[in-house]
């Protein structure tokens, strides 16, 4: 793994409502300037991990009960959520979470609060509009009326305004048309390459995630079950079968041929 880690998650456990344990001793690193993909089935705890990292768990009555999370060397437990954002960690949350009754431009303005207290030049709206020309066209319109893809663009656009050093991206492809997924991932790759922003990318669509990421983790039941460089993961038999839908011969399986019985994953047995 190259470069020092921007984000270092060490043996973290998370409990909701003081009863439901979701993460069970999870560790991962995001090296400087790289994209790390995090895969896992529904409810594995991916979003929970991201919320733990951006310190937003308390809003949902969740707690980090063990382990430590360090962002550029600082323990995040000592920081407020907005304080973290102002230090350069930006979380693009699941479900986009744009402000529906603000205009597109006001949504971007809201993100300028991330620059408060930082010695940086004024917010660069044009940079966002250059990545997402579509947003420029409807900048005066209410964000609530944007289509799903446009809302996702806006959510990533807000991250760009904040000039982060690490972006946490939670399922950016959710509900997007294939072409838009392509566009969004192209822009993710560009932002990473041009702005040198590190990213932790949560995705269900393993194929596209692997296309942009350097390293991957696979999560089940709150624990990492496999990790490794993307090339290595793509050769793993289980990953191929359960995440990429490739049959034994390497060809894509058809949904029509799926059998009624359940197969078992080797890493769980």
């Amino acid at each position, binding site marked *: 793994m190259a470069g020092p880690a921007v984000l270092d998650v060490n043996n973290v456990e998370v409990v909701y409502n003081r009863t439901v344990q979701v993460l069970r001793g999870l560790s991962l690193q995001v090296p400087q300037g790289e994209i790390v993909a995090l895969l896992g089935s*529904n409810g594995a705890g991916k979003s929970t991990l991201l919320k733990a990292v951006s310190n937003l768990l308390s809003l949902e009555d969740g707690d980090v009960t063990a382990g430590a999370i360090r962002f550029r060397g600082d323990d995040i437990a000592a920081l407020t959520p907005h304080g973290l954002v102002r230090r350069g960690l930006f979380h693009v949350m699941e479900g986009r979470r744009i402000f529906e009754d603000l205009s597109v431009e006001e949504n971007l303005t809201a993100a300028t609060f991330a620059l408060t207290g930082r010695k940086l030049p004024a917010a660069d709206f044009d940079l966002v509009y250059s990545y997402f020309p579509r947003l420029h066209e409807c900048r005066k319109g209410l964000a609530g009326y944007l289509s799903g893809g446009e809302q996702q663009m806006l959510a990533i656009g807000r991250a760009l305004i904040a000039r982060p050093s690490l972006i946490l991206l939670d399922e950016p492809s959710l509900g*997007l*048309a*294939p*072409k*838009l997924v392509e566009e969004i991932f192209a822009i993710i*790759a560009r932002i990473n390459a041009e702005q040198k922003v590190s990213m932790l990318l949560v995705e269900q669509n393993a194929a596209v995630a692997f296309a*942009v990421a350097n390293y991957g983790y696979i999560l089940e039941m709150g624990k990492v079950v496999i990790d490794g460089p993307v090339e290595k993961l793509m050769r793993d038999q289980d990953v191929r079968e359960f995440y990429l839908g490739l049959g034994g011969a390497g060809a894509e399986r058809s*949904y029509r041929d799926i059998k009624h019985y359940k197969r078992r994953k080797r890493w769980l047995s």
Partner: protein
Amino acid sequence: MVASPILEVSGVSLAFGGVRALSDVSFNVPEGAITAVIGPNGAGKTSLFNTISGFYRPQAGSIRFAGESLDGVRAPQRAARGLARTFQNIALFRGMTVLDNIKLGRHAHMRTGVLDALFYWGRAQKEELELRAEIEERIIDFLEIQHIRNASVGTLSYGLQKRVELARALAMRPRILMLDEPVAGMNREETEDMARFILDVKEEWGVTILMVEHDMGMVMDISDRVVVLNFGQVIASGTPREVQGNDAVIAAYLGSGDVGAIARRIKAEAA
């Protein structure tokens, strides 16, 4: 293979203020088959579903269902006639258990009135028990959700919630089942489960299916017909194979289909 249409959408137009969500949309849904509606985000797919269910009222055009016009028929009556659906953003009722959510689906087919309900022992009880038995035996077993029937829906994982939504729609005695993005946010394995259920509903229950979905792998595999919307207009329709090869569809919706190549090119350029 294509039977007579159970749902006929003709010339439907819908606008919100200045936004034209649908313009002059016409297509048929053949009975007993799976029809998929695809199209870019904001193309009007959900709006189309909403118009069919009667939540939106179109400015022009008409919809016929099982040979009868739906003009002037309000949403609840449409549901009663057998138009069942699930929602893009899960719309389960969080204050109820899974069982009650499913029971709710049968609402339109039940007869209990306020007085029956206040006294309960009698007609209301009989009806409730019949419903319970049917749901248990046909739906809960079929969808394999016995273990969660008394759970409150808020605590369920996303995939299970989607399944409960499907169960509720099945309780509505559907003649046509409209699924809005049934596998969004699911990984390959979960998608396969859902695809299996959808195929079974079609085959074992004989219910016509109309679905919106962005997962092209699944859509192209399991649907019999595909309708493509773009900017509120139908730009193509036909078998999956026909649509897949359509240049307009590729340009508007499908894209190159190879994110990997694009990413590699970007990385190379930046280096």
